[in-house]
């Protein structure tokens, strides 16, 4: 009763009342990865629209038993748009969204199953992280076969994953494909830390990869992956960051920053701002999923000062060409989504050092 009144009121008065947006984080902030990026999206939205929006971010923590109740709660409150992310939330959303047809939902990094019907109030955003990591793989392959100062003559590159899960493997598959695109004989040392928190273990594993002959590694492991950057500094080898511009995180430590050749960026913030803009314009396609990649600038490559400085121009040009090729569909990058474990193992074994 009361809630419905509230929400219909807010719909009527939407002209003068601010647009109320809530972001649900099914984890905690501080991951330097997509939750932080999503939260940054909210910041961007605030910056863009000021008092025209009212926002809130709720951390639901990693305890899964809390996720559904929270989603249900905010759906009953007077929010206009509810933003949430990750595949794990899809089932709850598929259940709750139809019960609250007057609410709008934006879900990122996954898509709801629209064939279930009644989801015309849900907009899904997916990312082509494999495109970004394809470029990372290609760059890594170029570097390991180069005679850059910290490169060796072994054709081994590293991949440090947080956990053996589809999103991470989507990065991996693109990475391997990119590396092989450059040189068929590239080997990839692959390690999974087992969680996203233990940066010391991340460092250990990265050290092990460097010891085994890798001269560049790509970390896709949230904060645990940052251990790789320490390892790179200690072993004087290269690293590629993920999600946020990791070289700039360590800009105060130039020795380290100078080894981080680039970072693959998953711009959830951009994608959310884009979505809200489209919502304001009335062009957002609720009831549909979109997959955003390099083209939409939702996947990016940190072309910062370090990139310019460390990576020879020749390679940068090469990467730019690849980027073009991916954007215009000349190259299609494989994805780990929907790939079964055997196929994945086959790929991983094919590059075993």
């Amino acid at each position, binding site marked *: 009763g009361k809630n419905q009144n509230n929400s219909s009121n807010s719909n009527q008065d939407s002209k003068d009342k601010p647009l109320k947006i809530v972001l649900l984080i099914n984890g905690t902030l501080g991951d330097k990865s997509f939750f*932080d990026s999503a939260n940054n999206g909210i910041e961007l939205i605030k910056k863009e629209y000021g008092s025209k929006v009212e926002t809130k971010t709720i951390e639901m923590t990693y305890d899964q038993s809390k996720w559904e109740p929270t989603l249900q709660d905010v759906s009953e409150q007077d929010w206009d748009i509810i933003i949430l992310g990750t595949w794990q939330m899809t089932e709850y959303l598929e259940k709750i969204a139809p019960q609250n047809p007057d609410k709008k939902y934006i879900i990122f990094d996954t898509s709801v199953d629209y064939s279930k019907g009644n989801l015309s109030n849900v907009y899904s955003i997916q990312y082509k992280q494999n495109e970004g990591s394809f470029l990372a793989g290609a760059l890594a392959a170029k570097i390991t076969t180069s005679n850059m100062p910290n490169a060796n003559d072994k054709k081994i590159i590293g991949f440090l994953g947080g956990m053996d899960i589809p999103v991470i493997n989507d990065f991996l598959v693109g990475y391997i494909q990119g590396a092989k695109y450059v040189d068929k004989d590239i080997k990839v040392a692959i390690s999974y830390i087992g969680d996203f*928190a*233990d940066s*010391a273990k991340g460092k*250990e594993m990265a*050290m*092990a*990869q460097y010891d085994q002959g890798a001269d560049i590694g790509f970390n896709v492991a949230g904060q645990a992956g940052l251990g790789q950057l320490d390892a790179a500094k200690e072993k004087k080898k290269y690293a590629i960051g993920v999600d946020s511009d990791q070289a700039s995180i360590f800009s105060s430590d130039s020795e380290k920053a100078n080894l981080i050749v680039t970072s693959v960026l998953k711009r959830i913030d951009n994608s959310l701002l884009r979505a809200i803009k489209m919502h304001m314009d009335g062009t957002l396609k609720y009831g549909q999923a979109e997959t955003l990649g390099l083209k939409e600038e939702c996947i990016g490559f940190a072309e910062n000062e370090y990139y310019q400085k460390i990576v020879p121009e020749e390679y940068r040009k090469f990467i730019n060409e690849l980027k073009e090729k991916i954007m215009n569909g000349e190259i299609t990058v494989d994805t780990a989504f929907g790939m079964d474990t055997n196929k994945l193992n086959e790929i991983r074994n094919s590059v075993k050092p």
Partner: protein
Amino acid sequence: MNNIFKIIFSTSFGYAILRVTTPILFSGLGAVISDKAGVINIALEGTMLTSALTGVIVSALTQSTFFGVIAAILSGIFVSLLLSYFSLNLKTDIVLTGIAINLLASGGTIFILYLVAHDKGISTSLNSKVIPNVTIPLLNKIPILGPILSGHNILTYLSWISVAIVYILLYKTPLGVRIRAVGENPEAAESVGINVNKIRYIALCISCILASFGGAYMSMGYVSWFSTNMTSGRGFIALAAEAMGKGNPVGTLLTSLLFGFAGALSNNLQSLRIPSEFVQMIPYLATIVGLVIYSIRKTNMLKYKKEVQNA
């Protein structure tokens, strides 16, 4: 298989073992002291986490590694006081107190990190200091041993020295005798005028100080930042190492090394594409197996003795 041996017999692997061992050894020694005093310190994990954060924050604020470490230790002492007050004065079950403190530390550190660094994950926005590595002059020249033993973090060396310190403390000082007496027969200790609670306070305090060194090592040596829950169960592994080392400082050193070995092995084997779940199991399986071997040997020795005697 070949690859595995190549890895195991490399000096960098040996070096890695010692690096992985350090925090476990510190906490394990901490567990030795508290165990000897008859108070099980489950809060080692929380203590490490707390001091890891404190070290980072204070070293960033003061721009001094030294003060960072000192502050890390002070925070460890603070945790020990909390633990002692509740478990010794208010008689809260010490295991429960330990669990509660771990809970408190895991949430509290994130909260404080957020207050200080406006970040809930990692302290990289703080320009914190690191404890340097040192090359040991002559040692580093020796082939094989040199690269394994030299060039470690100061705290790694301190952890080895701590084994001796803890040994001397327990077996060669009046305090040590009292700690052991209190652990073994508190009534007896009380009856000779020893203040049992005071000794336990002291033991828990030393225990937490040792764990603090482990914590400081994590965030100011192992890596150069604090990140949430970065200790990832090392405090519990230390408890296991202590129990397996039968509460003996030297035994604890050996079992910590075993852990370090298994941990380093698991970190290295990953890239050989053995299912990661199994590789990650290695350290824990190794402990269980180690524990069993140790226990079997002990049981057999007893049996053997009997048989010989009664033959």
